């Protein structure tokens, strides 16, 4: 019979995590827990130069004096860091030159994710740096990029091959002292991606990294550093799926973007970490620090589609340091069941004529809580700066929550700031209208939700927009029979 709110609630509860599977890979581990010795072991295992070890040890010291923040609108049991293994890597058999040498188990995982490297290789336009646990095991298109002088490799590799670049930029946007999780990451980061686009170069393909948390009980601490030199352009996509687990998994990444004069970075994320089951058991804790700095005339655009994680704590931000620089933040965050997300952005206007745009679309279902938290700060010298913020919330049930915490600090009278916000509930009228036209409940929800999120989805690179749309559908569709 007709579809009701109750059915919708039921459907939303019943859906299961689609990508819940684990890969059986023999991993190299170190003992559980965290102390100075562990930091040294990690650094030694990765054969790091002295300055990086110092960086880690300093971060560890800073971290020891910090407390885990609790201002976010999320509640969770704080992870016991002494129970976490801070480094694990699939045992490399030898140096990998081709896909044939990759563990077949890993290839199978990639197949299930629909991103088989074999296929990826054939598809022109996408280079993939696949992170299995903490070590990159396969990198393609590297040679092609190399011809242009574009460096796109794992962070560890960059430390070995391009130490001068890493040393110059590491920690310049997110200092070690920034926050509890950034400090932790700086001490124990395992691996991640490094990208450098030379002066005046337009990177011809989307650079894409797929991250996975795989080893049970392994915290993963990604470190990403992306430098766009003067007048260059790059579009980068980060997409995540994670296997189903009963215990919580900690993920505390740091992403630093540097856009030098006239450069542009477009950074897109599709995040689908395991969100826990429908009773809120398990799921990934995602405590991420993402920030970019714009020099003169530079532009950084963050686009994120967030559907996973039990707890999300994430504020991709822009420091608009250079005159005429531009920062953008486009976000769709979906929470279902008992998920909690506290996400948003910070736009720090320092240079003159700086512009920022914030479009945030929250979708809450089940018993979840979805918060937008943002800061727009206009500094004293930021003459004629402008910000436009729009924060919309869509509620799917009457048991979920949507919260908005927009902070504004303005120290310059010439600035223009606009803020719009709406909250709406998915309407029975809309549902019935769709159904009367022959669009069944599942399809109708997908249509309405995708319509609501369209402004943000449109900002994603074409080839990923479809994927993201599908992800929204999966995240919200029920097992409607």
């Amino acid at each position, binding site marked *: *019979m*007709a*579809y*009701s709110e109750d059915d919708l609630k039921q459907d939303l509860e019943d859906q299961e995590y689609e990508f819940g599977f684990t890969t059986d890979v023999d991993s190299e581990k170190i003992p559980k827990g965290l102390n100075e010795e562990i930091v040294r072991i990690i650094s030694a295992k990765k054969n790091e130069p002295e300055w990086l070890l110092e960086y880690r040890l300093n971060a560890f010291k800073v971290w020891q004096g910090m407390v885990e923040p609790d201002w976010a609108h999320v509640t969770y049991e704080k992870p016991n860091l002494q129970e976490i293994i801070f480094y694990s890597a699939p045992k490399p058999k030898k140096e990998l030159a081709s896909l044939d040498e990759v563990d077949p188990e890993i290839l199978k995982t990639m197949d299930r994710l629909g991103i088989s490297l074999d296929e990826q290789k054939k598809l022109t336009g996408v280079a993939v740096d696949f992170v299995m646990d903490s070590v990159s095991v396969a990198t393609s298109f590297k040679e092609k990029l190399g011809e242009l002088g574009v460096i796109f490799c794992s962070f560890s590799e960059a430390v070995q091959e391009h130490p001068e670049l890493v040393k110059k930029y590491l920690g310049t946007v997110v200092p070690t002292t920034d926050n509890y999780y950034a400090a932790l990451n700086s001490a124990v980061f395992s691996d991640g991606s490094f990208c450098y686009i030379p002066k005046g170069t337009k990177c011809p393909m989307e650079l894409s990294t797929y991250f996975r948390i795989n080893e049970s009980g392994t915290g993963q601490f990604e470190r990403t550093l992306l430098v766009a030199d003067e007048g260059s352009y790059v579009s980068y996509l980060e997409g995540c799926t994670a296997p189903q687990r009963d215990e919580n998994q900690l993920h505390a990444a740091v992403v630093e973007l540097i856009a030098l004069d006239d450069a542009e970075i477009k950074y897109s994320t599709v995040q689908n970490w395991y969100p826990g089951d429908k009773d809120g058991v398990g799921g990934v804790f995602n405590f991420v620090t993402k920030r970019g700095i714009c020099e003169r005339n530079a532009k950084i655009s963050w686009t994120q589609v967030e559907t996973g994680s039990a707890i999300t704590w994430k504020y991709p931000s822009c420091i608009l340091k250079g005159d005429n620089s531009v920062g953008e933040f486009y976000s769709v965050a979906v929470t279902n069941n008992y998920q909690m997300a506290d996400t948003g952005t910070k736009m720090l206007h320092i240079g003159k004529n700086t512009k920022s745009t914030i479009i945030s679309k929250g979708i809450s279902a089940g018993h979840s809580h979805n918060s937008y938290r943002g800061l727009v700060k206009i500094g004293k010298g930021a003459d004629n700066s402008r910000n436009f913020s729009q924060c919309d919330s869509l509620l799917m049930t009457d048991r979920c929550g949507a919260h908005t915490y927009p902070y504004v600090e303005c120290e310059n009278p010439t600035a223009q700031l606009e803020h719009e916000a709406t909250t709406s509930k998915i*309407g*029975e*009228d*809309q549902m*019935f*209208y*769709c*159904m*009367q*036209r*022959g*669009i*069944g*409940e599942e*399809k109708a929800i997908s*249509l*309405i939700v*995708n*319509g*609501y*999120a*369209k*402004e943000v989805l449109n900002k994603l690179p074409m080839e990923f927009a479809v994927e993201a749309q599908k992800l929204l559908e999966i995240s919200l569709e029920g097992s409607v029979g």
Partner: protein
Amino acid sequence: MDKEIKKMLEVKNLHASVGDKEILKGLNLEVKAGEVHAIMGPNGSGKSTLSAVLAGREEYEVTEGEVSYLGKELLELNPEERSWEGIFLAFQYPVEIPGVSNINFLKTAINERQKYFGKDPVAAKEFLKMVKEKSALVELSDKLKNRSVNVGFSGGEKKRNEIFQMAMLEPKLSILDETDSGLDIDALRIVAHGVNTLKSKDNASIVITHYQRLLDYIVPDFVHVLYDGRIIKTGGKELALELEEKGYDWLTKENA
């Protein structure tokens, strides 16, 4: 022609309520292919409830009676199944769906129906040809076709959009719920032209209206007066004129 096949809709002793309140109290109605039925009646008589019940809106509970539609038990079908089987409701208050283009909405609707009948999706070229042809019928501009469903449409544009959708979906039984409300005379003419053009011997319409005005343009074969949840009088198109002149009082007193 076989009489049985010609019978499209048969409503027998229909009782329906919202919450504790009974609104339809034993309604009978029979509609055959090729016919236009007008349902008139004062406010609160149950006109919109009838359209909602026929389309399957779930807040309305049917407590008694039966409805057969082309040989099927209508009340057993989901709203979307009713749609696929050819029932179309032109809404009194068309709903806005932000971010979903009119065209995408219709394409989804049509292809869901294709799926139901085990057919392939309609080819893009064919679909666009249909859009062009049908939108001309109600003078719907290209701009409106690509805009989000009903978002920022004027009252008249919304109603024209309903008839455009109706034209695209080619229903067997159309229910127009106060389609004339809020329309100026030009829009009314355009809407009526659309409805009249779509009329054939194989389809039927139920036109729910408050005023005789619409019936100058869409000429009904039957006019029913709905009062207190029942049809209390049925006549030809001249009944509408009589109602216009005398109001409903003379009928309701008879039935009091």
